[in-house]
């Protein structure tokens, strides 16, 4: 390297100039060059030594390995000799034969006698080939290997049961691809490079350690004049400004390093409390970014991460539970606190305006959802519609949780009324699992919460078991105020020291996670036992309008002691549960704040924060009512269908439009993204249900949505139970009870893709060519057979891949909509092997399913079991490969085949 670069440098030095200054400068340049050169040589020498060392190390290691392998192979020889297996012998025997022959040859003084080799039981024997050239080797009688039928060619592919968006690194755009001529031996044909210039990699090269070293040394020795930078840049083959920037960075780093060394000691002490300083938004960051609100999974491969957050304009009702209103949630429930105070304050209600309006349970019954669903999922309401029974059971669960989550300070051990369950760890364990997916930080918060919680539990003395929980309430209610005060203060006492301890111990998080999981597994049975117990209780006293003096004392300090994350969790809790401190403290602030504290804080912040809950609630109610009115007026001609009807009439040749949810917060206006894009608003949009651009489903019942009379069917959409009025399907064999049916007794037949109700497809050798897809069971006309899945790629990508596939004369591209093409080449399902036919028995159709376009394959006629499936690929006429052309067209268009851009299937 150095020898190559020197002439370069000297060339610049030879500029014709007579000025003595320049001569001087060039002189100094010469010095600089020599210094840089010597540095480079030094680096190069070090590199050589380094490589030599690495090679030595590797050699030594490898020596051990090969010796081990050698020993293994020797062992095999010993086994072979000792073994009695006759079959082992043949190769050995042949070896022996040849040796014998060779010896025989020696005796015969080199006279060759290959044909005289002794025949034995086995037909062939060894043949010697001497040193003379040109002996033909056809004397050993060959052993025949029976023919095995080979498979039709295919590329190894991954099965997909749903479409996936292409990941960045799978793109072939901008990548050089080299082909070889299958018939022409070695000829290398480089890819069509005129359209792509590959230079991305060259742009930013990182500075290596050695470059840094030379840079620093050189500047140390000769200063950082422009000349030096210039020459260094030449030496690194970079721009001088880059070198300068790098030098500045280096010097800065050096200073920082020094600084850090000094300040190192103090830094460490603050580390362990870090996540408490994070606010909730940071903790929920990955939840927002990675959770797909359409598929309800993390890391969705279809819609990708970092989707735009769309918040629905229709807010759900805050969590409400009839039982919760009546029963104190635990030892530190604000209700108990105020009960003890009630004698004093009975006649003087404080903060009258805070009174929470109870939501009639009849109304809320349909809207009860678990907090997780609610938080995660804007369309949670949909869930509850379809499985009310589930939500009912979750009611019970929550109730039981409430019974299990009392916080018991030490003083309480005197009272015998304790449940035997080990409640805290369990509950938080569950909590932990809920959050696990959402975010590591959040998870750590929970784990730590649990740690604290555990400490609290252990600080409880083991209490005597008694089966019933409820009498305790009565007893607690009669507790004197003094006792209550004690309880709170002692609880504080108990709470703080163990945390320190647990932090110091730093018990591995992993382990505690495991235990959390284990506990969760145990839980269900527990719940079952507890459920009925809770149900029997029917306490009705509700006194939250009274605020305990005792609690109020702390008001002044309360606000400040709350950490950012606690505040964030509280705010979220308000959003989810409304003003229900029991639920907030239990579900979100467990182990951090007691119910009473939450209640107190809620009241403190009342004046500062405007509480939007009730306002929201009324608004959403209002909207709901309006929605219902609309629905009664609903007709096929209602305004919501305007755009879709337009599309139906105009469609035919145009590709469908990709839907992206809009974030409109009120009814969509002219600037609505969906409207501009020409798609309908869907349930995933932010806009309220009353939006005029919404597709509002069908309300077919008897027709079962199987004909174009159904608006969904006519619009090439599947019915959506969230949207359509009467669409439902039964599940199971009915032994578990029939779901509540809407409309008449007819199941919707237009949800097969959504429900994956597909036919069994078999892969086999085609009767036509290559692979083929076959049907296992016979089906009737228009029956849904299965989905054509694959990678979703852009049209640009598809053009590029198409060219590659054209070379192989097999294409799995399928035009999906204006934005995406499906490629089943590497990922897909068996239907990708269905062959083309001009007279097919199936047809493909692009259908909108829950906001996504998907390709369904349907039977065009009745198909018998075991028949091969064909459908018309519907290539664009000028791009179709020769075999897919209509017979009459093939003759005339043959010459165009080679120039065709790409062939993509159409629905």
């Amino acid at each position, binding site marked *: 390297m150095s020898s190559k670069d020197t002439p370069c440098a000297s060339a610049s030095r030879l500029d014709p100039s007579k000025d003595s200054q320049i001569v001087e400068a060039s002189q100094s340049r010469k010095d600089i060059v020599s210094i840089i050169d010597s540095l480079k040589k030094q*680096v190069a020498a070090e590199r050589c030594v380094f490589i030599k060392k690495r090679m030595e190390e590797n050699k030594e290691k*490898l020596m051990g390995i090969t010796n081990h392998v050698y020993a293994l*192979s020797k062992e095999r020889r010993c086994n072979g000799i000792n073994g009695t297996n006759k079959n*082992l012998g*043949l190769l050995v025997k042949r070896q022996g034969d040849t040796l014998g022959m060779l010896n025989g040859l020696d005796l015969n003084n080199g006279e060759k006698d290959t044909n005289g080799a002794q025949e034995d039981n086995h037909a062939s024997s060894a043949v010697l*080939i001497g040193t003379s050239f040109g002996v033909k080797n056809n004397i050993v009688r060959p052993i025949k290997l029976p023919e095995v039928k*080979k498979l039709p060619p295919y590329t190894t592919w*991954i099965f997909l049961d749903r479409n996936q968006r292409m990941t960045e690194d799978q793109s072939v755009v901008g990548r050089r691809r080299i082909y070889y001529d299958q018939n022409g031996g070695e000829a290398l044909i480089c890819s069509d490079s005129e359209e792509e210039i590959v230079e991305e990699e060259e742009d930013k090269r990182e500075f*290596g350690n*050695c470059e840094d070293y030379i840079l620093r040394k050189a500047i140390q020795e000769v200063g950082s004049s422009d000349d030096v930078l210039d020459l260094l840049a030449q030496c690194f083959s970079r721009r001088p400004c880059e070198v300068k920037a790098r030098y500045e960075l280096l010097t800065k780093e050096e200073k920082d390093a020094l600084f850090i060394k000094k300040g190192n000691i103090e830094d460490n002490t603050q580390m362990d409390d870090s996540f408490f300083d994070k606010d909730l938004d940071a903790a929920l960051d990955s939840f927002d970014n990675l959770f797909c609100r359409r598929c309800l999974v993390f890391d969705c491969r279809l819609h990708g991460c970092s989707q735009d957050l769309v918040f629905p304009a229709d807010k759900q009702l805050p969590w409400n539970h009839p039982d919760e209103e009546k029963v104190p949630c635990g030892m530190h429930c604000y209700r108990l606190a105020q009960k003890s105070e009630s004698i004093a304050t009975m006649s003087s209600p404080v903060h009258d305006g805070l009174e929470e309006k109870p939501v009639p349970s009849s109304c809320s019954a349909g809207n009860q959802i678990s907090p997780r669903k609610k938080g995660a999922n804007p369309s949670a309401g949909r869930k509850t519609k379809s499985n009310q029974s589930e939500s009912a059971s979750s009611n019970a669960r929550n109730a039981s949780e409430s019974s299990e989550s009392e916080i018991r300070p030490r003083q309480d051990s005197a009272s015998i009324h304790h449940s035997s369950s080990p409640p805290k760890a369990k509950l938080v364990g569950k909590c932990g699992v809920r959050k696990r997916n959402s975010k590591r930080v959040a998870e750590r918060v929970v784990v730590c919460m649990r740690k604290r919680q555990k400490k609290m539990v252990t600080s409880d003395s083991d209490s005597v078991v008694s089966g019933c929980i409820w009498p305790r309430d009565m007893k607690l209610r009669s507790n004197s105020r003094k006792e209550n005060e004690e309880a709170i203060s002692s609880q504080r006492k108990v709470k703080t020291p163990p945390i320190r301890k647990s932090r110091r111990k730093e018990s591995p998080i992993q382990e505690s996670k495991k235990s959390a999981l284990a506990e969760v597994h145990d839980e269900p049975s527990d719940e079952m036992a507890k459920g009925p117990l809770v149900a029997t209780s029917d306490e009705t006293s509700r006194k939250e309008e009274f605020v305990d003096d005792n609690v109020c004392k702390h008001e002044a300090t309360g606000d400040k002691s709350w950490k950012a994350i606690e505040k964030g969790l509280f705010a979220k809790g308000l959003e989810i549960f409304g003003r229900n401190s029991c639920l907030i403290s239990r579900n979100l602030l467990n182990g951090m704040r007691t119910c009473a504290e939450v209640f107190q804080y809620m009241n403190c912040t009342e004046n500062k924060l405007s509480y939007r809950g009730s306002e929201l609630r009324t608004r959403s109610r209002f909207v709901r009512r309006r929605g219902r009115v609309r629905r009664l007026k609903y007709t096929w001609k209602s305004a919501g269908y305007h755009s879709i009807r337009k599309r139906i009439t105009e469609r035919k040749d145009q590709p469908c439009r990709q839907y992206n949810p809009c974030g409109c917060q009120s009814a969509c206006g002219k600037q609505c993204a969906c409207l501009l894009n020409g798609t309908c608003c869907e349930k995933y949009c932010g806009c309220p249900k009353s939006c005029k651009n919404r597709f509002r489903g069908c309300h077919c019942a008897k027709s079962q949505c199987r004909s174009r009379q159904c608006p969904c069917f006519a619009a090439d959409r599947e019915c959506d139970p969230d949207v359509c009025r009467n669409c439902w399907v039964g599940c199971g064999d009915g032994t578990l009870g029939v779901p509540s049916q809407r409309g008449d007794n007819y199941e919707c037949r237009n949800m097969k893709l959504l429900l994956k109700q597909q036919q069994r497809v078999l892969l086999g050798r085609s009767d036509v060519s290559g692979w083929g897809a076959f049907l296992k069971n016979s089906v009737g006309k228009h029956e849904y057979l299965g989905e054509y899945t694959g990678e979703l790629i852009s049209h640009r990508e598809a053009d590029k891949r198409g060219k590659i596939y054209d070379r192989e004369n097999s294409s799995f591209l399928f035009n999906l909509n204006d934005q995406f093409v499906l490629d089943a080449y590497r990922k897909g399902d068996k239907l990708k092997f269905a062959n083309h036919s001009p007279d097919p028995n199936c047809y493909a159709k692009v259908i909108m399913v829950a906001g996504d376009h998907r390709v369904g394959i349907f039977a065009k006629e009745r198909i018998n079991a075991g028949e091969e499936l064909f459908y018309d690929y519907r290539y664009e006429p000028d791009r179709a490969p020769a075999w897919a052309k209509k017979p009459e067209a093939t003759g005339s268009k043959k010459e165009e085949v080679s120039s065709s851009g790409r062939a993509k299937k159409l629905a």
Partner: protein
Amino acid sequence: MAKTAIGCEPTVGSLAPSKKREYKVTNRIQEGKRPLYAVAFNFIDARYYNVFATVGGNRVTVYQCLEGGVIAALQSYVDEDKDESFYTLSWACNIDGTPFLVAGGINGIIRVIDAGSEKIYKSFVGHGDSINEIRTQALKPSLVVSASKDESVRLWNVHTGICILIFAGAGGHRNEVLSVDFHPSDIYRIASCGMDNTVKIWSMKEFWTYVEKSFTWTDLPSKFPTKYVQFPVFIASVHSNYVDCNRWLGDFILSKSVDNEIVLWEPKTKEQTPGEGAIDILQKYPVPECDIWFIKFSCDFHYNAAAIGNREGKIFVWELQSSPPVLIARLSHVQCKSPIRQTAMSFDGSTILCCCEDGTIWRWDAVGAS
């Protein structure tokens, strides 16, 4: 390919012959008219160190090297399908030590031949296209791995006939896989390379239970729960063209493209982020006129030397583990002019075999070595 930064330059071997060892032609066999694509000594069993096999066309032939340059033909197998063209072979063995010959080619069928009883033992159907290389795990010689045009690498158990793992999918090769090799000591690791210009290192550590299960599987092989390994632990872009041969040299990798050289480099995997990582190119072994693809090199048992043929029928023998690399010998013969697809070095490197596109096998013996 990016220019190497200062301080990371590889040591390049000099083409000046060192005359460390001299070889001379001692035998030549014309096996047939069809090109021979592979030749390999049996390193699996010490009894057969002097036994080698060649493949070409639809024929597999087993020979023995005897003293004085004599070669004895021991066995010959012919596929009944005349269109079969074998590209690769590897020696393996049954768990009881029976020597197996594993060969594959254009038909995509892997043939496992029991050389002890001279019968076909099993045929593996599964690859969707031709097979470009087969290698045997030296520590467990009934495991073989195959690289195929169908863009996958598959791990097989020749004893039970099970396809254990398929290395393909989301992170897999994007074009034909041309070469594959087992790590010499880390039994979980393999490296593969191909026409997508990359070298990928795969780990089967998480799937090892399936490998173990394959030895005791008694049900039909097709019922075995074959697993896909979709993501390699390391992807290296060392070359800018087809990579047609790679071999582990300890923890380093030797690989070659069509750039007239073999490159030795070190993969530097990061524990936290699998898939990404840096490469450090340590040494280069120039091989003139080696600019066509499907030319493979071979090493002796202890990896002291490697032999590679070129487009013009010459062989370059490099000392692998010295720094800088030393060219042990350059072998040429006036009558050997067609491309050499593969070479084979005997256990101690004293015999070098090469098979050519014109269907000839050449034997070179070290002068002075007994």
